[in-house]
C-alpha cells in the first residue's frame, strides 16, 4: 500500500512517499507565494523521485502551516501530532521533540506510543525561530549552511547580543561588525542567544530523554552542539531532519487508509 504525507511549511514544502512502512522517496522545495502550487510541485517531485504514479497513492495526509491548501489530501493533521509520530517512528525511545523551522519553534513531549502529552510553541516572535539566524546570517553576508560550523570556531571571547528581538539584534550585529569584531564571535553570540530561547521553550514541557531535533535548524551544528551541552544530553537527529513532519503525515495516512479498508 502506498501512502503520502505532505508538510507545507512557511519556507519549504515537503512531500514523502511511503510504501508498506518504508520510505520510497521525498522532496523538499521552497514554498512560493502560492501554497497550493508548492504542495503540487513537492508531490510531483517526490512521486518522480520514488517512481510512483499518482494513481497508486491510496491516501494522503497534509500537515504544516499550509495544510488546508493541499487539494489532493484526504485529511489534515496538526504538525504537532505529525512531528511526534514521525520522530517516534524514527527513534522509538524519543520522549521529547524539538522542531525548529523557519517560522516557528515547537517543543513536544510524547508518550511511548508517540502520542502528544504536552507541547509549547512559539510562532509569534521571530527571536526564537530559524528566522533569527537567517537574518543574522544575511547581515553577516553568510549562507545559512555556513553559520553553524563558524559559530563553533570562536576567535576571541564570546560576544553577547543583548537584544532579544530579531530586528534589534540585527542592529547589535551591525554595531559589532563596525567595532571590528570577528564574524565567528558575533555568530557565536547570536547562536548562544537563540539557544537560550530554545531551551526556555523546552523547559516548559520538561525535557525527558531521548530528545529528537527536527526541522531545518537541526542542520545547524552550532545550535545542536550548544543545546546538547546546555541540557547535558545527546540529541537524536534524522538523516533528513526536514521531512520528519512529512513522515508523521504519511504514517497517519497509512493508519487511516488501513482503517478505511477494514471498514469496507
Amino acid at each position: 500500500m502506498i501512502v503520502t504525507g505532505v508538510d507545507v511549511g512557511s519556507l519549504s514544502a515537503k512531500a514523502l512517499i511511503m510504501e508498506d512502512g518504508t520510505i520510497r522517496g521525498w522532496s523538499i522545495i521552497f514554498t512560493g507565494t502560492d501554497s497550493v502550487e508548492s504542495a503540487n510541485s513537492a508531490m510531483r517531485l517526490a512521486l518522480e523521485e520514488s517512481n510512483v504514479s499518482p494513481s497508486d497513492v491510496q491516501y494522503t495526509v497534509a500537515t504544516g502551516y499550509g495544510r488546508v491548501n493541499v487539494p489532493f489530501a484526504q485529511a489534515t493533521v496538526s504538525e504537532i501530532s505529525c512531528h511526534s509520530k514521525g520522530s517516534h517512528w524514527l527513534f522509538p525511545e524519543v520522549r521529547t521533540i524539538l522542531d525548529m523551522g523557519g517560522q516557528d519553534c515547537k517543543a513536544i513531549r510524547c508518550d511511548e506510543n508517540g502520542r502528544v502529552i504536552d507541547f509549547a510553541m512559539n510562532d509569534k516572535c521571530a527571536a526564537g525561530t530559524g528566522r533569527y539566524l537567517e537574518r543574522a546570517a544575511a547581515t553577516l553576508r553568510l549562507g545559512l549552511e555556513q553559520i553553524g560550523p563558524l559559530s563553533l570556531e570562536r576567535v576571541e571571547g564570546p560576544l553577547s547580543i543583548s537584544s532579544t528581538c530579531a530586528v534589534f539584534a540585527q542592529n547589535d550585529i551591525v554595531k559589532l561588525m563596525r567595532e571590528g569584531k570577528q564574524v565567528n564571535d558575533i555568530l557565536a553570540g547570536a547562536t548562544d542567544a537563540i539557544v537560550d530561547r530554545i531551551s526556555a521553550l523546552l523547559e516548559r514541557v520538561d525535557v525527558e530523554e531521548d530528545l529528537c531535533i527536527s526541522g531545518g535548524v537541526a542542520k545547524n551544528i552550532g545550535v545542536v552542539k550548544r543545546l546538547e551541552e546546555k541540557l547535558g544530553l545527546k540529541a537524536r537527529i534524522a538523516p533528513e531532519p526536514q521531512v520528519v513532519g512529512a513522515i508523521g503525515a504519511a504514517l497517519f495516512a497509512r493508519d487511516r487508509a488501513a482503517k478505511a479498508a477494514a471498514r469496507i
Partner: protein
Amino acid sequence: MITAGIDVGAENTKIIILSDSGILSDTVVCLGRGDAQSNALRGLGKATQVADIVRSDIEYVVATGIGSKYISFADEQATESSCCARGVTWLLPSTGTVIDMGADKCLVVKCKHGRPLNTVRNDRCAAGTGRFLEIAAKPLGLDVGEMGQLALKSREDVDIESTCAVFAESEIISMIHSKHRPEDISWAVFKGLARRVYTMILKVGFERDLAMVGGLTKNVGMVKAIEEQAGCHILIPEEPIVVGALGAALIAAEKNKASFETPIGSSGKLDDSGASQQ
C-alpha cells in the same frame, strides 16, 4: 534663569533652551552622526545661537533619552517618562495619558500634575515601535511618511495577523503577491501597530485626554489608526519631537526653587490641569 534640556534619542538629539519668559531656541534637532556627546554639543551650539545667548548663560542642563548618560556636561539626568509628562502637561494641560513614539521605542505615560503616575515602555520588541513601520514600508517601496498618506486612501479592510515585525514583513510580501492594494496593506500595518500601542495604553490605565509626542506623531496614518483604536481624538503639540527636551529643560528650571513661583507660566498651568482632572 536660563536652562537647557537635551533629549538624546536613538536617531536624533533634541535641544530646548528655556528662560523665565518661555522657549528661547525653538526646535533644534541634530541627526545622530557622531557620538552622543559631540551631537549634543553641536546642537547646543546651534541652539544658543538661535536663542542669542552664550553657553555660560545656561545655568542648569538636564539630559534625558537613551543616550543621556553620555552627556558629561549635563548637571543631571532625568527619566524619559518624567520629561515626557512634564513637557506635554506644560503644552497640553488636559493630558491624562501620553504616547511617546520614536524610532526604536514606545512609551506610554499616565500623568497627573505634570508627573508620571505610571509608565509602560517597549524597547525590546520592534513590533511596537517605529521600526515596525520601517520594515513594513520596505516591501511596499515606500518611506514611512508616504505609507501614512497612502493608508488614508484605504478602501478595503484587511488585517496583518503577525505581531512580530519579521513575520509581518513576510506576510506583507504575500499580501502584495496576492494583489492586495498598497493602500489597504498600509492601513493594515498602521492598524496592527495601533493595536499594540492600545494594549500599552490599557496597561498603563487609560485616562483622557490622550496626547501623542515623538517622531511618529508626524505620521497621519499612525495618528488616525490610534485614534480609531482608542476611540478618541489625540492631542498633538505643535512640535511633538522636542517635548522630551522641553520636559528636561522644565525640570532643570524647577531646580531653582526661587524661580518655581513664576517660571514660564508653567506652575499655574499645571495646577489648573490637576484641578480639571478631578
